[in-house]
């Protein structure tokens, strides 16, 4: 795979993020849900908009796992989505956009440019 150019955006400090939960990041006009999976020491970012009823709510969802797959459940109707791939795990044909995350010097960065596959 060819390395695509990235476009890191400083989202917040590590201590602003919620342990084992999500926060919503404003990135221009976009809303991105940022999850700090402290238990696994992993970070994930997805769109904040739940594709089910178009609610800006995923950052307020509960995170957890299905088997090994990290996931988030939307607070509205509990549809679940893989944090790794964005795929809907509740059998619906909708998926979340996911974004790369990195942490450097206590700052969390998100790359908001959609990955091209």
């Amino acid at each position, binding site marked *: 795979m060819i390395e695509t150019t990235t476009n890191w955006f400083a*989202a*917040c400090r590590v201590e*602003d*993020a*919620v*342990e*084992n*939960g999500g*926060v*919503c*990041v*404003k990135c221009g006009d976009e*809303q991105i849900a*940022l999850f700090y*999976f402290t*238990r*696994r020491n992993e970070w994930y970012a997805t769109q904040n908009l739940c594709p*089910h*009823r*178009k*609610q*800006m*709510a995923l950052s*307020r*969802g*509960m*995170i*957890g*796992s*299905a*088997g090994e797959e*990290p*996931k988030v*459940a939307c*607070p*509205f109707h*509990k549809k*679940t989505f893989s944090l790794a791939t964005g795929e809907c795990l*509740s*059998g619906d*044909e*909708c998926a979340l956009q996911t974004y790369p995350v990195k942490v450097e010097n206590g700052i969390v960065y998100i790359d908001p440019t959609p990955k091209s596959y």
Partner: protein
Amino acid sequence: MEQKNVVIIGNGMVGHKFCEKLATKSTSFRLIVFGEEPIRAYDRVHLSEYFNGKSAEDLSLCASDWYKNQNITLHLNDPVKEIDRINKTVHSSRGLTVNYDYLILATGSSAFVPDIPGIEKEGVFVYRTIEDLKLIRNYAASAKKGAVLGGGLLGLEAAKALMDLQLHETHVIEFAPRLMPRQIDSAGSHMLQSMLTDLGLSIHLNKGTSSIEGVDRIESLKFNDGSELSVDMLVISAGIRPRDELARLSGIDVGTRGGIMVNEYMQTSDPGIFAIGECALFDHNIYGLIAPGYEMAEVVANKICEGTDRTFNGFDMSTKLKLIGVDVASFGDPFITEPDARTIVFEDTHNGVYKRVNISSDGRYLLGGILIGDAEAFNMLLQTVNNKIILPANPADLILGARGGAQSETAGITSLPDEALICSCEGVTKATICNAVSDDGCETIDALKKCTKAGTGCGGCVPMMKDLMLHTMKLNGKYVRDVVCEHFQLSRQELYDLIKIHNLKKYEQVLDTLGKGDGCEVCKPMVSSLLASIWNDMILKKGNDTAQDSNDRFLANIQKGGTYSVVPRIPGGEITPEKLIVIGQVAKKYNLYTKITGGQRIDMFGAHLSDLPLIWEELIAEGFESGHAYGKALRTVKSCVGSTWCRFGLHDSVTFAIRIEERYRGLRAPHKFKSAVSGCIRECAEAQSKDFGIIATEKGWNLYVCGNGGSKPQHALLLATDLDGDTCIQYIDRFLMFYISTADPLTRTATWLNKMEGGIEYLRNVVVYNSLGMAAQWETEMQILANTYECEWKAAVEDPAIRKRFSHFVNAPEEKDPTVKFDEMRGQKKAADWTLV
């Protein structure tokens, strides 16, 4: 290998299912689909949900890139206009010409529109496609009175949709002397009619429509009997007409009354051309349901793959009416009578239930029947007909339930043969489901759905799937417990005990000690609720905050659009004028919608996340506290004015209600629970519909328990009589602690009691006669919980770390969510509707 071309005309439900089936069976075909509608195949069966907020995308049968990924060419918005059978090509409206080796006609049907003068007027619609529904919705916005022509299955569904669109009047006009004439008898129709009238529909039977009046747009309907009805819009639902025009044009045989004639392989008079779904005429029948359509798709996919020799042999037309708010089902032969059958009828006009079963004259087999008002037995009865199961000695039990004798719930399932079709949409048998459980280790409904596809169509078979799954697991020697989820192989009660024994205080500790993996949306709120019930710690303490259900995490119920509601506690429903003014001022300041709730208090809706702490700060300063409207906890204790004002009041029910509400406020339980105190047997506080309710008597208080309103109302049962106040509270302490320590998650007290062996007698022994010897411990525990109560909103607004979480953007805490939208209604705001695409 050379790929053969299969051209499919029609991208409806059956055409799509055919593509799915053929694509999984073989790769030796190139599939080309032509669809007339502008969007890819969608779920027509659930079309009406478009009005309840489902978008076209939600209703889609596949992802937008599915056809591409399967290498299927899809031409939408491009109807085929000609078939050239000699050269084996089809020509589309946009000028494409494509060769075929096999041609599949899946053109469905259209609404039958009777030839009534004026039918072309504006405001007259049919109910078949998303486009139709869009037009209806737009037109309904300026209409007040609507009518549906046709009182069949679809007509009633359309009528419900018009009601949901908030028309002031909705009429159903039926030519026949009864509703759903093809499915139910006149006694059933009678019952259904009175129930629908209660729902607000006006039903007109025996009405032939002679003309549609109005200048350009419809203004009224004229009937053969000379009467007239003024309406602003009309939806025609008078039956379906198979789309056979293309076949007819190309010289393929069609029936005299329409439909493309097919044999048992779904072959038309041209053996290279097949017809499936609602356009096909098999043995003089058009099958206007989805399950037979899917079966036809299977037959053709098999045939052209040269797979097993599968034929179509007709199909059961049993149906259940959905959506309308009244259960209606008919199965097998609903009308057969003496001397070919005997009928058993049960009619209860009080509760609006009508049931009829027809059994063979020898009493051995079930032949068919009708269920109205309560169709819970539908699946099992249908299976009993289809599989010719020998009936019990007393067939009346089929509709009345076993009385006296013990018949376990699963007895029915075990008697089903392996070939019994459980999911008729996807054609999945009992054996397939049981094997998936035994051999493929599917031990959840989701796993079963993925593996067998059962339950993914209309979903009606899911309860039966679950029973089969549990039953098979038991047979395989698996100790079936209601374990919490994949992360905890324990029941709620086991977890409750273990958390206490191990003295665990945080979700993460519980998971590390007793579970595995990273938790999920099922175990997190459940464990959080247990921790709260046992220790009564502030629920948002660090480490427990993100394990709360979203409503608990933000101490408010999330509503449509992402705003929250605010419900301060108003114990017993008693409030001073000063406090009323405070609520009014706060609501005004933060622009909140206000409503008196059904629980005797005031709800303020539409609060932005970041305003919640500010709102509560002001309310708390004026002496309010959290009403726990968001928690699985005590809601309200309703009261009537009682002896303080009422001339019948025996005791002071308000004071007692307040005492009770203040004792149990904030107490976390498996589900929410409610109470009420009435000052006399007139029962104005409706105490007998509550989890526990109290009614004053000459000598004291009567205590009732385990009542429920909601979707399955149940009256509370009398636990003890003529109690003094303190004893009454003692009993309630015990009752609640028993409930909290033993009930399954999300089980209200009524359901808990229904599952309890020994029922109310047993409960009385435990609570009143202390048969478990737990009374003293429970009373002490409850006293500790009551002493440690603290308003969690107060704790939250005083803690900067918690307050920080009440902002929408982590990197712009002062900004509100710009996507939140409100509409206006009756001088207040309301949440904007779900976004429709």
